[in-house]
């Protein structure tokens, strides 16, 4: 049985020949049904107490009553995220949640960063995609342990899936954990996974106004990596305008211009990771 939630169905495996992280999740079930436009099962002839005060003929008497709930819709995810954060802190693991649109070069950037961190910080990776374990394989090629979560129809990772992945991956104490979210600049913004920081990756082949078009993600992130800087000579992309747009949405956002291809800016990113991990460890030691 799964110790995270007791769901009894967790199955996240590191065997790269098998579909990894096929957590038979209640969500899967729901998605199966969501596109089923078949005949409804409502029995038309039955008395339906769900439709108004049916059957309650006494004046002023209704079978229905109101119940106050006042619960945050994201409260379940947030509870799992808190548990992830606690488990990571207990082992001194520094976790980053990488978010971007598809094709920004997240996986290439992570692979290159892992190589740059070799001998300085141990790294393990959780890869999120709808299908395939291609990304986890690309990460494993660098020598870092990686686990793939396939979300199926899901458009983002949630804290529950990540909790299972952390449990299986079992990152070593005082290491760094990279979580590569599903390529999607909208949905992952609202879902806390228990990470220390969200890092948003944008590439120079996208528009300078992307931070304005998809503000939630830039508001939720602490660091912006502007990737593919090696292509700048061939493009009309205005780096200054792009960063100004991002800072308009989030004045506290830190920014770095990088290239996973040439390695430009990667030393600064590695320094950021080491400094942030040290700051995090110090804050935890004080608490």
């Amino acid at each position, binding site marked *: 049985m799964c110790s995270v939630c007791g769901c009894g169905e967790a199955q996240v495996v590191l065997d790269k020949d098998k579909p990894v992280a096929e957590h038979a999740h*209640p*969500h899967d079930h*729901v*998605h199966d*049904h*969501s*596109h*089923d436009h078949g005949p409804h*099962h*409502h029995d038309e002839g039955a008395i*339906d*107490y*769900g*439709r*108004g005060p049916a059957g309650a003929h006494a004046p002023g008497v209704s*079978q*229905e*009553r*109101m*119940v*106050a*709930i*006042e*619960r*945050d*819709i*994201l*409260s*379940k*995810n947030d509870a799992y995220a808190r548990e992830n954060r606690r488990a990571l802190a207990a082992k001194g693991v520094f976790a980053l949640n990488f978010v971007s649109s598809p094709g920004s070069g997240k996986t290439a950037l992570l692979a290159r960063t892992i190589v740059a961190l070799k001998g300085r910080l141990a790294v393990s990776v959780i890869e999120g995609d709808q299908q395939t374990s291609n990304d986890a394989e690309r990460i494993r090629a660098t020598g870092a342990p990686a686990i793939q979560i396939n979300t199926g*129809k*899901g*458009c*983002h990772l*949630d804290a529950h899936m990540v909790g299972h992945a952390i449990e299986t991956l079992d990152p070593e104490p005082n290491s760094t954990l990279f979580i590569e979210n599903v390529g999607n600049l*909208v*949905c*992952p*913004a*609202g*879902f806390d996974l228990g990470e220390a920081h969200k890092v948003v990756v944008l590439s120079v082949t996208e528009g300078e106004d992307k931070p*304005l078009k998809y*503000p*939630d993600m830039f*508001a939720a992130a602490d660091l912006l990596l502007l990737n593919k800087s090696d292509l700048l000579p061939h493009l009309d992309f205005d780096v200054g305008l792009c960063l100004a747009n991002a800072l*308009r*949405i989030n*004045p506290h956002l830190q920014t770095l211009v990088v290239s996973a291809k040439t390695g430009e800016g990667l030393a600064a990113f590695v320094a950021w990771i080491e400094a942030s991990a040290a700051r995090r460890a110090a804050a935890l030691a004080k608490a």
Partner: protein
Amino acid sequence: MHEMSLTESIVDIAVEAARKEGAERVTRVVVDVGALSHVEPEALEFCFAAVSRGTLAEGARLEIARLPGAGWCPDCGKTVALAERFAACPECGGFRVQMTAGDELKVREMEIA
């Protein structure tokens, strides 16, 4: 469409509360959705019927209460209405407005039978 998993949370929360109350079914669920939250109300409605099927909340009506957005503009020194997240202050045009209301995402109450 993260609204699908948000709707799953809504149904989970309602069904859990309904069980606690010993209810036979949920007939109405009222949720607060702020105008500045990252949620499309129509998508919630669309998902609700599908997600609630086969649960205590099957057939329930989903009522979405839209709450207006507001923010504090430090340049004007007052609270201003916000129609859009991260929008400029409607009074002075500055971009330093701090959102103070409108990102609510909450199951407020429900009707059970």
